[in-house]
């Protein structure tokens, strides 16, 4: 009960944001709706990465692979089989999670930079196969014009689908983070040696976290297909993975909503700066440099810290 009150009180701005996003298609032009749908998809992807990066302390360098595999699974199911649509939608995340289990089983025996590098090479392997296997995945052309069913084929339909699924996933991830499992995961991040000493199976926890994170990355991949209607091998290329990693660090990887903020900043910057100049990467680069120099905790991390300090000072004053 206590927990419920805290949740509602502290979640007011998330709920307000959700309400605004729900009514936005009625007032905003279609282009903005499309961009917001992309923000939702990317935000979910960044959140899923942060589950292992920020909460698990694992150097997940190639998260984009699971996103891409989820998207490709749906795309192939919709274009090459006549199975019901929902089978493809469920299969995407499951295949991504299965790949996560396989790669994780190999990776979790390593730590930090070595974990990241093994994953980077395994992920690049998957990318190279998708990139070259013209008969099956379409190679570097990708797959275009994926028949997305009925209501989801309209822009507003795919936007609401992306928004609602992303919101549900966010709530589920929040519950996972606040569960005993989430606490154990954070304890492992802070001190794996001590956790192992008190009897926690470190590797198994990390593997489970990875499978959960890759599942949600697969969900993001499915949402991408409904929004975009096409897939291409760049979804699995390491530049995208690094970009998602940057979103987490930019927003604040030790905060729950930080990756959402980071994803929104990157996607919106690319879109709206991209309208005025083709040199949007230069501007993003400069902004990132400034963040690294002056906000080492990320944007949201910085404001949370200030807010905490501010409220502490306030209680001190009222106490005195």
């Amino acid at each position: 009960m206590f927990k419920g009150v805290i949740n509602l009180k502290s979640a007011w701005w998330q709920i307000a944001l959700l309400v605004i996003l729900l009514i936005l298609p009625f007032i905003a032009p279609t282009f903005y709706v499309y961009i917001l749908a992309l923000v939702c998809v990317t935000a979910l992807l960044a959140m899923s990465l942060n589950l292992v990066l920020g909460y698990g302390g694992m150097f997940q360098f190639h998260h984009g692979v699971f996103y891409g595999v989820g998207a490709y699974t749906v795309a192939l199911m919709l274009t090459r089989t006549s199975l019901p649509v929902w089978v493809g939608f469920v299969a995407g995340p499951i295949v991504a999670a299965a790949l996560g289990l396989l790669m994780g089983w190999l990776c979790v025996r390593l730590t930090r930079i070595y974990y990241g590098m093994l994953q980077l090479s395994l992920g690049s392997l998957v990318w190279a196969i998708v990139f070259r296997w013209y008969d099956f995945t379409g190679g570097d052309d990708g797959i275009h014009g994926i028949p997305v069913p009925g209501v989801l084929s309209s822009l507003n339909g795919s936007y609401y689908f992306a928004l609602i699924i992303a919101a549900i996933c966010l709530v589920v991830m929040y519950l996972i983070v606040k569960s005993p499992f989430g606490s154990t995961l954070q304890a492992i991040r802070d001190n794996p040696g001590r956790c192992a000493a008190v009897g926690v199976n470190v590797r198994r926890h990390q593997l489970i976290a990875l499978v959960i994170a890759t599942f949600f990355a697969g969900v993001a991949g499915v949402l991408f297909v409904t929004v975009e209607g096409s897939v291409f091998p760049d979804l699995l290329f390491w530049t995208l993975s690094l970009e998602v990693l940057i979103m987490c660090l930019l927003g604040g990887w030790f905060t729950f909503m930080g990756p959402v903020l980071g994803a929104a900043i990157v996607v919106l910057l690319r879109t709206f700066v991209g309208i005025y100049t083709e040199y949007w990467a230069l501007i993003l680069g400069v902004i990132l440099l400034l963040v690294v120099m002056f906000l080492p905790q990320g944007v949201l991390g910085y404001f949370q810290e200030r807010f905490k300090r501010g409220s502490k000072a306030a209680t001190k004053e009222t106490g005195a």
Partner: protein
Amino acid sequence: MDFLPDVGLATLGAQLMVGLSRAMILFIITAGMSLILGVLKIPNAAHGSLYMIGAFLAYTVAVFFSGVAGFWLALIIAPLGVALLCLVIERGLLRHLYEREHLMLLVFTFALMLALDDLVKLTWGVEYKSVSVPAIFSGSFSLFGLPFPRYNLFLLVVGVLVGVGLWLLINRTKIGKISRAAAVDREMVDAIGINVSWVIAVVFVIGGWLAGLGGALIAPTVNISLGMGHSILIEAFLIVTIGGLGNMWGALLGSLIFGLTHCFGVLFLPQFAIVFPYIAVVIVLIIRPTGLLRPTAW
């Protein structure tokens, strides 16, 4: 093994030489990355961009002087230009950040990569550029009865020279010894009165010089384009990892593995040739997670 194409020894030998010269280019680039990683502890995501800038600078210099002189001056001036750029970056930005977390330094170099890539686009435009090889290196000679490009032989020689030069620099000079000490314990080196800050700057500059040299060397053999830094970067990261982080000879070993698996892959399964180096990396990392040779203090 009857699914394999009929490959004669001569073809294998020629392909081996191609693989070796490819490995030499990779070694020159990854040696720089390995130095920076070993001493500065930074996974330099901007390394591919420095390599690309080296290639573009080589193009500009070669066009400006034209002919044979242009080629040789490009090989000298382009790496120096990249080194100068590195000096400015290190003194201006990077040295304020050494106390930060590794991941934040990765963000820093990524931001640098974004900015540098766009600056290259701004300076040189989006069209492909190409540099011509001087007469003595153009064409090919007969090797095992098969044609072998002369320029590749030149690359092999330069690769060996760079390797020997780096060995001498690291083992036989004072700055090499100090940088090795700084890789192990920076504070201790600082405490005995050596200006570590400048040593680190020099290492970063040498690393950048090597990236620029790699770019200038590859320039005559490829289309110089904006994306060229991206593919080399991931390869360099993986090579450095399988060799042992920060270990120079590991970089050489990793480059050989990467170059040779790719070239023999082309022979046997051309469509999936790019897959073989990654398989090699996965196998190495599963068997020896910290790389083939001993990593420097990490």
